[in-house]
C-alpha cells in the first residue's frame, strides 16, 4: 500500500510549557484504519489535530504524498452541530463554506445522510435527535466532501455501549464502502482492536508511540469477530502493550 502521510520528529509544546507530543515518527498508509490508543491526556488527540492542520507542530514535519494536505473530514468528541440549523443544513456546511449553493449540494447531502442511515431526518433539528444520531450527523458532515482522510477524535466516548457497537459497525461499513483512510483516537483497547487495521500505542505524557500493532483481520468485521478467540488474543497483546507503556519510567515534562 502506498503512503499517504509521513510524520517525522513531530513534537508539540503548549504555551504553558507542557510537552504534549514528543518526537513522533509515523507513516500513514493509504486506506488503512489507524488508531491512536492511549490513556487520557497522552497527546493522542493533539497528534490527530496536528494531522488535521488544526494546530501546527512545534517541530518536525508532516509530508503528504499529494504534495499538500488532502481534504480532511474531522469528527470531534462532541457532535458539534449548529443547533439553529436543520440536519440538512448542518451537513451542507462544508460545501456551503466553499460557496456551493444549497440546491447543487442537495445530492451530496442526501447521499451523506443515507450513508449514516439518517435519510429521513434531513429536516429535523439537532435537539430533537439522540446522542448517537447527532454523532451520525457529525459523521455525515465529515463525509459530505468525500475526503480521502477521515479523522475522528474519541467520537463515541460519550455514548452507551449498545449505540457505540452499532456506530462501530457502521463506521467500518462506511470505511469499506468509501475506501477512506481513517485516523481514530480512543482510550478503549476493545474498540481499537475491533476497528483498526493498525494500532499506535501512546505512552503517557509526553506522548510517544511505543508500539505499533497490526490487526490483519479483514474489514468489515462483525459480532462474530468480537466474540472470536482471535479478537481476544489481539486484545490481550494490545492491552499488554498499553500496560507496558503506562508503567514505563515516566519522564516528567520539562520544557522551559
Amino acid at each position, binding site marked *: 500500500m502506498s503512503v499517504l502521510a509521513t510524520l517525522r520528529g513531530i513534537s508539540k509544546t503548549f504555551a504553558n510549557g507542557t510537552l504534549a507530543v514528543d518526537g513522533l515518527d509515523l507513516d500513514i498508509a493509504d486506506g488503512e484504519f489507524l488508531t491512536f490508543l492511549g490513556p487520557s491526556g497522552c497527546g493522542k488527540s493533539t497528534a490527530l489535530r496536528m494531522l488535521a492542520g*488544526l494546530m501546527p507542530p512545534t517541530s518536525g514535519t508532516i509530508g503528504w504524498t499529494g504534495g499538500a494536505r488532502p481534504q480532511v473530514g474531522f469528527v470531534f468528541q462532541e457532535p458539534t452541530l449548529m443547533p439553529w*440549523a436543520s440536519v440538512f443544513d448542518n451537513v451542507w*456546511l*462544508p460545501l456551503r*463554506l466553499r460557496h456551493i449553493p444549497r440546491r447543487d449540494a442537495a445530492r451530496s447531502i442526501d447521499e451523506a445522510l443515507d450513508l449514516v442511515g439518517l435519510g429521513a431526518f434531513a429536516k429535523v433539528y439537532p*435537539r430533537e435527535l439522540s446522542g448517537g444520531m447527532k454523532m451520525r450527523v457529525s459523521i455525515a458532515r465529515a463525509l459530505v466532501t468525500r475526503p480521502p482522510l477521515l479523522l475522528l477524535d474519541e467520537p463515541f466516548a460519550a455514548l452507551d455501549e449498545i449505540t457505540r457497537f452499532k456506530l462501530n459497525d457502521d463506521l467500518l461499513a462506511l470505511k469499506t464502502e468509501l475506501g477512506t483512510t481513517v485516523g481514530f483516537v480512543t482510550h478503549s483497547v476493545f474498540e481499537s482492536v475491533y476497528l483498526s487495521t493498525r494500532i499506535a500505542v501512546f505512552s503517557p505524557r509526553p506522548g510517544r508511540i511505543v508500539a505499533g500493532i497490526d490487526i490483519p483481520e479483514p474489514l468489515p468485521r462483525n459480532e462474530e469477530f468480537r466474540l472470536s478467540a482471535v479478537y481476544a488474543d489481539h486484545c490481550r497483546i494490545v492491552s499488554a502493550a498499553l500496560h507496558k507503556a503506562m508503567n514505563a519510567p515516566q519522564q516528567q515534562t520539562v520544557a522551559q
Partner: protein
Amino acid sequence: MSEPRANGRATNALPDFVLPVAIFIAALAGWEAVVRLNDIPPYLLPSPSLIGETIVKDWPLLSGSLWVTLKITFSALFLAIAGGLFLAILFAQWKWVERSFFPFAVILQVTPVIAIAPLLLVYLDAQTAVLVCAFIVAFFPILSNTVLGLASADHNLVELYELYGASRWQQLRLLRLPGALPYFLGGLKIGGGLALIGAIVAEIAAGSAGQGTGLAFRIAEAGYRLNIPRMFAALVLISVTGIAIFLFFSILSHLLLGRWHDSQRSREA
C-alpha cells in the same frame, strides 16, 4: 398549583392564563371596594373605575402624550439596536477596538441617566435630550449581551470553520451571528424596557423647562394640579406600554428561537 402538566400545557380543564387573570381582577375589585367602603376621596386614592373613566375622558390629551412617549421610546430603541449591533460586531472582529471603546460604553452605563439629563438639556433641545437619554440606557444591555453572544461560539465549531477554510465574513454570518441571537434577544428585552424608563426619567428631569408633552410630563403637570386620577391614568398607560414592549420581544424570541433554543423548550413532566 400542582396540576399535572405535559408539554407546558395544563391538562386540566382550566387554561394556564385563567388563574393569574382571576387574581388580577380580584385585586382590582379589592382596591375598588376599599376606596368605596372607606369613602377615600379621589385626590388621595382614586378607584380603578375612576382611573378607567379618566383614561376615556382625557383620551384626546393622553393619547397625544402616549404617542410622543412611544415615538421617543422606539426611536431610542431603534438607534440602540443599530448602534449596539454594529459596535458589537466591530468588537468581535477586532479585539483592540473592544479594549479601546468598551470603557466608554461602561462609563455611559454606570453614570445614572438622571444625572446626565440636566447637562444634555443645556446642550440639546428638550426632545433630542430625552431621546439621547433613552438611547444611552437602552444601548448598553444590547451591546454587552451581543458582545457576549458573539464571543460564545462553540470552539470546536470555530475550528471546523477554519478546517474548511471559512472566511471571516462566513464565520460571522453563519456561525457567530446565529449563535449570538439568543443573547441579542435577551438584551433587546432588557433594552426595550429601559428605553421606556429612560424616556420617562429624562422627561421628568426636563420638567417644565422642556416643552415635552409625553406621559411623564402629563404626570408632573397633573401632580401640580392635584389631579391624582390623571396621574394614575398616565401611569397605567406607561405600564401597559412597558408590558406591550416586553410581550412583543418575548413573542419575537419565541418565533425566532422556538425550533432550536433550549430557552424556548417546554420541559416534559
